[in-house]
């Protein structure tokens, strides 16, 4: 039930992010979701893309340091309290969120939350036990 995310190391320099999107655009790869974390001298770009393997190879060939991480994609109703209900379940289960980001699906009915946990397997168990819908990779890419 895990989804693969790729992450890219970026120096804080003008034009670096555009380099990444250019490579992906030329490879015909669609970005489903992304988040950018930054410090004063570097940043980490995290991406959910349609073709993980291809995206990774292209970026590596372009000279970037690329990592792969397992994250968990959770679908919730797009209404007030949607995110809160999930975080409450996780908090009660003692699972720590390293980082997260979210996007709204094209239907507009649901939101998808991407989580990186310290203990991924335990987090999945807790969420499933609470009846939360977890998206698989193919489901996520097809949205």
């Amino acid at each position, binding site marked *: 039930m895990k989804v693969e*995310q790729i*992450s890219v*190391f*970026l*120096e804080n320099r003008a034009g*670096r992010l555009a380099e990444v999107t250019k490579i992906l655009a030329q490879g015909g790869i669609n970005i489903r979701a992304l988040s950018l*974390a*930054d*410090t004063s*001298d*570097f940043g*980490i770009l*995290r991406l959910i893309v349609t073709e993980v393997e291809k995206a990774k190879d292209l970026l590596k060939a372009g*000279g*970037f*340091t*690329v*990592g792969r*991480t397992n994250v968990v994609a959770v679908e919730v109703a797009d209404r007030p309290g949607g995110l809160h209900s999930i975080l409450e379940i996780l908090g009660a289960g003692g699972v720590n969120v*390293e*980082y997260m980001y979210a996007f709204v699906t094209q239907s507009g009915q649901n939101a998808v939350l991407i989580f*990186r946990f310290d203990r991924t397997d335990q987090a999945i168990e807790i969420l499933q036990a609470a009846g939360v819908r977890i998206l698989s990779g193919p489901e996520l890419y097809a949205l």
Partner: protein
Amino acid sequence: MLYDVPQETLPRDELEALQLRRLRQLVDKVYYNVPFYRKKFDERGVRPEHIRTLADVQLLPFTEKQDLRNNYPFGLFAVPRDNVVRVHASSGTTGKATVVGYTARDVANWADLMARSFVCAGGSRRDIVHNAYGYGLFTGGLGMHYGVERLGATIIPISGGGTRRQVMLLRDFGATVLCSTPSYALYLYETIIESGIDVTDLKLHTGIFGAEPWSEKMRAEIESKLRIKALDIYGLSEIMGPGVAMECREAQDGLHLWEDHFLMEIIDPKTGEVLPEGATGELVLTTLTKEAQPLLRYRTRDITRINAIPCKCGRTHRRITRIQGRSDDMLIIRGVNVFPQQIEAILLETQGITPHYELILRREGSLDTLEVKVEVDEQLFSDEIKHLQRIESTIQKNIKEFLGVTAKVTLSEPRSIQRSEGKAKRIIDLRHS
């Protein structure tokens, strides 16, 4: 003024006769007491009796910094350990420090040479000396200290750091001579101004500066800002410490190397060949009077040349010109010696790998800064900011701990560091450009 008139003005022929006598005693001593040297002599088929003239020093083997490391810690002592009254050491990662031992007579000779150097700079026993060289295993602080005490002047053993307090005491104690690295002198000046102190309220008349490379331009800046005469001192712990050579106030043109205690040669650093007098090359020193740890033909890696023109100060000891650079990749950062390999060892120890790295040296205001740029490859990379920041801070902490230098660590993208023929260019020194 001269501290030791007979020795400092010894006619050249007498000085050279004294050098030869001391060299022959030294060679005898190390051959019979230091296994390292005996082995080297035997390999070359050289015996002590082969040394008949000063030029015969060329028959002797060189000693390198690595030889000191290989014999860490006390392997090059030429006297029983209980005759050694003091040990100094250079910074280094574990097991890589270079250690130097001194007998009581070595310490006394050092104090004498430092007193000689101090007077050569224009100091006298009436002076109050603000000694901002670091005290401890580093030879700077204690070397200066003993020399000033030997002369009978007043020493303020302030050591390094706490600059605001230094400025206050500099004024309150009415120090007349400042001893520090040249860049620290400029930093002190900035702090003096920030503290609202008028330079004319200070009693300083002389600065004795060393332990890092500097230029005539920097000298002019220090002299006009602090309203002092700035003089260059040379030394290295392996040979003794500060006070191996000293610029005289009278000429302010090159450093008199105390030839009654040290024999100097200038060699081609590539071939090891001795160069004619006046040629620029690497300074090689033989200690003529050291007891605990005498060294034969020690390769200092410092680039200079010998000036044999008689000096107007009356001293007969020949001068070396201001150190022009290094024949190896040693960096001097705020008076601390750093080799790129030491940084590499720290990176290896910290991360378990040797990433591509680059050292960038800058001068910000008057102080040197070191930036260590480390390329992030897949082994080092993490998708979490905190892991990458932890890598930065761990490297920084270890550099501070092992080398005593504060570095800024920056993570960079792969291939962002220049490579020449596949090999990374490790050092970018922007300090003197």
